[in-house]
């Protein structure tokens, strides 16, 4: 016996559509939403960079996802599920269905990431896609999920665009963004380096770089800093010497490196090599700032990070109950502390599962409704709000500094300040974009 199920988005009335319409003897088993789980399990898609420069970050995200799945299915010590303020999750999967997962490689390329996500949706019937380590990928996959009618829980993506001009109703971001980095950093920089500084920006020449530069500029200029120059550097640049030497000759006394990943490692290393940090300008010590820190990447810069300020979403040395529970559970399983990428992806997986439980369905519209305006705590960043207007989480932001005397290879950053959420909150409309309506697909 054969059953023809109808899925997809065929509109009746179309000439070709009419020709292809299902004969009546086939069962037309239309679901309310894309990939509604039918059996005893539900499949999630973990789409992370496994090749390319962010492969290690992707590997850490994958570890966190595996840990989250273990906890959701009732294994392990439960991690942050124990400290999470919502108690909807029972350790029996999601809505009683065992959590299964598939993995894919984004290659940190929008095309590859979408191909991988589509295969998860079309072939593996994933009901939610999560992961990623760059904003280009996040925006591309988010748009795809909106179209396909599944939920997208963004991984590491820091550009304002993800929940700004490119926001989508089916997409959610826990990670912080450029604006928040700027807002959190400025007061600390003012307190440590004074309000009369001349800043020189080196900016990665693509969207994330632009938004980060703008955020840091706006917030530092607001407190009295002057921006001497802002030079854009190609993404593919490996040696930054020709961008560093002009800094020496300018009268700037602060260098802001709006770089991430390999760019950040190299530009910071080069800046320190050229003795910028030993320099005295206008009677002040020359300082370097890295707006977005990642511990995994900071490791690549070695001793060069010492004493350099930046911001981060989360760090394993936080001492709240949630963070401690997560570090313990992750560290005992893998032998080293989790990165911020691992943290945000773990939290995203748990938040999604919790929203399903509270909504009582996997339907993206139900899940989105449960997440919108959701307030929670116990996930490592203090009280947090998933804002309904742009699907962005608002929580405390960490300002960190490269540690002078690290005790181990993981102990690279120390927390200088936990900037309260209120200080980094902004109006949802400032970045434009349209959220649209949630799309349940089928």
């Amino acid at each position, binding site marked *: 016996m054969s*059953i023809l199920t109808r899925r997809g988005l065929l509109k009746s009335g179309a000439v070709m559509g009419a020709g292809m319409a299902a004969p009546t003897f086939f069962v037309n088993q239309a679901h309310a939403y894309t990939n509604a789980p039918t059996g005893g399990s539900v499949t999630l898609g973990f789409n992370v960079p496994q090749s390319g420069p962010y492969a290690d970050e992707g590997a850490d995200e994958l570890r966190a996802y595996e840990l989250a799945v273990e906890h959701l299915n009732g294994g392990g010590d439960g991690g942050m599920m124990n400290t999470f303020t919502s108690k909807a999750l029972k350790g029996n999967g999601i809505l009683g269905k065992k959590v299964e997962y598939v993995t894919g490689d984004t290659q940190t390329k929008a095309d*590859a990431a979408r191909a991988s996500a589509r295969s998860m949706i079309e072939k593996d019937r994933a009901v939610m896609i999560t992961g990623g380590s760059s904003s280009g990928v996040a925006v591309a996959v988010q748009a795809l999920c909106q179209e396909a009618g599944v939920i997208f829980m963004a991984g590491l993506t820091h550009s304002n665009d993800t929940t700004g001009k*490119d926001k989508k109703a089916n997409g959610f971001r826990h990670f912080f963004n450029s604006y928040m980095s700027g807002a959190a950093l400025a007061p600390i920089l003012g307190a440590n380096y004074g309000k009369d500084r001349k800043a020189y920006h080196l900016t990665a020449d693509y969207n994330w770089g632009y938004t980060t530069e703008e955020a840091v500029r706006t917030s530092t200029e607001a407190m009295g800093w002057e921006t001497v120059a802002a030079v854009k550097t190609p993404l593919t640049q490996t040696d930054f010497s020709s961008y560093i030497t002009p800094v020496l000759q300018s009268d700037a006394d602060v260098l802001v490196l709006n770089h991430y990943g390999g760019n950040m490692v190299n530009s910071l290393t080069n800046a320190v090599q050229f003795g910028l940090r030993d320099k005295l300008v206008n009677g002040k010590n020359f300082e370097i700032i890295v707006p977005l820190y990642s511990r995994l990447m900071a490791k690549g810069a070695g001793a060069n990070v010492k004493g350099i300020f930046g911001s981060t979403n989360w760090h394993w040395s936080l001492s709240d109950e949630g963070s401690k529970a997560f570090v313990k559970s992750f560290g005992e399983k893998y032998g080293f502390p989790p990165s911020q990428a691992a943290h945000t992806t773990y939290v995203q997986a748990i938040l999604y599962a919790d929203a399903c439980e509270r909504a009582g369905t996997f339907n993206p519209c139900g899940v989105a409704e449960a997440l919108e305006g959701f307030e929670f705590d116990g996930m490592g960043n203090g009280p947090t709000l998933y804002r309904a207007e742009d699907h962005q989480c608002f929580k405390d932001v960490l300002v960190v500094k490269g540690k002078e005397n690290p005790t181990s290879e993981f102990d690279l950053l120390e927390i200088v300040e936990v900037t309260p959420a209120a200080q980094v909150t902004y109006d949802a409309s400032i970045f434009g974009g349209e959220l649209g309506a949630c799309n349940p697909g089928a």
Partner: protein
Amino acid sequence: MFGLNKKDTRLMWIVITMVVFAPFILNPFPETSGMAQFNAGYPDLMQRFVIFGIFAIGFNILFGLTGYLSFGHAAFLGIGSYAAIWMMKLLTMNVIPAIIVSIVVAGLISLVIGWISLRRSGIYFSILTLCFAMMAYALAYSVLTPITGGETGLQPKLNDPRIFDAPLAAGASPKANLFGLQMGATYELKLGGWLFVINAGYYIAGLLMLAAFYLSIRIFRSPFGMMLRAVKSNQQRVNYTGLNSKPYTLAAFVISGMYAGLAGGLLVAMDTQAGAERMFWTASGEVVLMTILGGVGTLIGPVLGAGFIKYMENIVSKINSKVLHEWFAFLPDGMEDFLVAVFYPFVGKGWHLTLGLLFMMIVIFLPGGLMEGGQKIADKFRNKKKNDKDDSAQAAATPAE
């Protein structure tokens, strides 16, 4: 038939059959079995097979016939994509204008780049095309962000003008379609444990791929194609035969640029997103690899090469340690762990390693690419059969060249 000789007609029918029945051929394993991991019959990958097939067929018209190795063909793919997405944003989500404009724009740009690059030959030509493509990539990723979307690329937005389309219903999002038939429209056919997916977008792309393939056979068999092969064989003699090689190579360059534009437009039609990465040199390198892997200068080789690489990228990269453990679960624990440890470096995040190894093996052992491999197998098969049955197998065994 179709103005093709007997051998080519047979090849055409084979390709038509493959395209039409791909959803079945590519899903040989029941949905619930462990081997389902190797099924490739889902819309996205099938679409990519035919789209990159088109790209490689077009590339082969240039490289296979004239011998000019362009290392920047991805630029035309990317330019086609941008043209298509802008048509969707400005005019209509109907794919027809998007596809037509992507071919035209890619054709115009390739005319300019080809006209300049073809002033040099050999590796100098390759590097010229590479430089143009890298410039296109670098600019699209950075200073051209207002036009290209830069890092995040372009997708249709709710508030795009789309002057020919009726306003969207509340809550609806713009979707690529052909006179109302959406590219994502899909029927699922369940037969026992098997699940087959019949996707509208795939068949539209497949139809265009068949047209592109047919056109390429006609070009191969035309006087024009013969002249191109003459250029590859002996440019000096071409000139002393009264032929001007430059317009021939330029025409081939533009035709293959238009194929690339079509592929780019189709990528957008099937998956409404355009980004700069598809112009990076690795993307240009990929189509070179597809063509060489499949068999340079053969008709169907590049399509096979495209399928091979896309299969590796999308299927092998998704095999993770959990899947490996499931496969070997029937073995005793020690054996299971051992086998997982052996296979693990080659799958999932290690898929590049497998790809690299296979590149090397194919080029070492099958100098003519996959086509030669197929031919060798066919030869063996034929030798066995020859005793009782003669030449009927012979024609089928050497389908391409």
